[in-house]
């Protein structure tokens, strides 16, 4: 059991993004002067939008340069806060994630409803820098903070009938104004096979850039499944159920001809209305070329074995 003492100062209180990106160089250059100055004034902060410390680095992280905080937090698909890309940042401004409860049930021996704090407390937070590929043919690189999903799920002891995991987003039109219109069949639901959910890449993210998740990115906790199109990475989760049958995910229920259950990133299978062969990396200039999309978003080594013998053109 890892017992963490609250640090005197959290990284987000002193670091901005550019320094965060070059933190080793920064620390080397600055020495201990900064720490010496700030230790005396800053106490441990409580509540949302504080930072994390002692993040475990992961060998699964990419060394591609991450997108800016600005790009990651202002260009979002989160219809619960509006359908435009800039709507969530605007409409989620007053969203207070805490207190938050997550109900875990279905085919498991230890179903429970937990507070957000009790759900994450037993775990160490990792930094995972992942590529994110949206089904709309754009991509980013995001430095997530999170917990391997498998570590969380095991605590609820899924039984032998647990073949799938279903996730459900909060439904609360007062706090999520996009839900006042039926743009999707609320609440948003997503699903994974149990093998996909237990894969070491699959992350329950609770932060980005060393801080708690902004509301527009799915506070307080969201899924990150980096080899699948972004819509699989469901945000603001309130329910997790182990199921025997395959759950119906929201987008494939809305437009079954365009969005499937698997939604693995695949440059060889086009969306009916656009090509998936290339992607536009957000943050590049308007005149930069698109880049080729990689099979499984470049995570084939970790996940290709999950789909042996599966026709990926049919099971898109």
């Amino acid at each position, binding site marked *: 059991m890892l017992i963490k003492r609250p640090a005197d100062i959290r990284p987000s209180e002193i670091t901005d993004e550019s320094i965060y990106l070059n933190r080793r160089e920064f620390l080397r250059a600055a020495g201990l002067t900064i720490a010496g100055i700030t230790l005396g004034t800053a106490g441990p902060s409580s509540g949302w939008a504080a930072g994390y410390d002692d993040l475990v680095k992961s060998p699964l992280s990419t060394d591609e340069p991450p997108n800016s905080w*600005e*790009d990651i937090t*202002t*260009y979002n698909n989160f*219809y619960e806060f509006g*359908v435009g*890309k*800039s709507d969530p940042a605007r409409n989620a401004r007053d969203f207070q994630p805490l207190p938050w409860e997550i109900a875990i049930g279905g085919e498991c021996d230890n179903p429970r409803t937990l507070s957000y704090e009790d759900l994450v407390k037993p775990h160490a937070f990792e930094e995972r820098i992942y590529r994110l590929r949206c089904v*709309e043919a*754009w991509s980013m690189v995001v430095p997530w903070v999170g917990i391997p999903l498998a570590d969380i799920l095991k605590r609820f002891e899924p039984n032998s009938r647990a073949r799938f995991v279903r996730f459900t987003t909060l439904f609360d039109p007062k706090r999520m104004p996009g839900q006042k*219109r039926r*743009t*999707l069949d609320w609440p948003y639901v997503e699903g994974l096979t149990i093998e996909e959910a237990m894969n070491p890449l699959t992350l329950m993210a609770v932060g980005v850039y060393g801080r708690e998740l902004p509301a527009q990115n799915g506070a307080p906790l969201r899924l990150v499944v980096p080899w699948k199109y972004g819509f699989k990475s469901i945000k603001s989760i309130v329910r997790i159920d182990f199921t025997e049958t395959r759950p119906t995910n929201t987008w494939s229920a*809305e*437009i079954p001809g365009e969005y499937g259950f698997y939604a693995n990133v695949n440059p060889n299978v086009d969306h*009916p*209305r*656009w*090509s998936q062969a290339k992607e*536009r990396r*957000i*943050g590049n*200039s*308007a*005149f930069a*070329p*698109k880049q080729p999309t990689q099979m499984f978003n470049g995570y084939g080594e970790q996940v290709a074995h999950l789909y042996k013998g599966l026709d990926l053109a049919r099971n898109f």
Partner: protein
Amino acid sequence: MNTIRNPSPLFLKSLKVAVFALCLLPFALLAAGAFGVAGYDLGANPVEALIHSTGKWGLKFLLITLAVTPVRRLSGLNWVIRFRRMLGLFAFFYLVLHFASYALIDQRLDLGAILEDIVQRPFITIGMTALLLLVPLAATSTKGMMRRLGKRWQKLHRLIYPIAVLGVWHFYWQVKQDTLEPLIYAGILAVLLASRLFIRRRRARVPVAVPGHG
């Protein structure tokens, strides 16, 4: 009131210059955004912003152009017709920019990919069709061509109706899920097209009514 019914040539000329400048404003802002001038930018996905914005401005100008005749009939201000050509050409201008943003900036003139899109993706097929149909209208928009084509000019320029329908349809088909915005365009287009039937019927009724008064 009289200056509005019968504006002086100077007034009309100044108004034309002002409207011209106003029509260029979206282009100026987009150009500033694309090149990062004066603190403007196009957000996280500038290419998408360019394509969407030019497309919507093109459609808006198509609808404004189609509104000229109903406004003229309903208000009796005949001089508004003198703005129709300019507004129509601005629609063409923004739709050419829309295609250019897609072909030059997004696809980087990858002819294979562009052709594949046009052939395989129905929403691009109809958008491309609408733009191609618009070319002869822009080419015959001069006074000389109007004179040369005579009665056929009007017939040719009725193509604007199917073009507008295809354009709004292209927008409707392109959006992922929330169709509210394209439906607003479709609603405005429906009102503009219906107003023509209404005007025609009213005009047709007039000669019938005359003998009764005699």
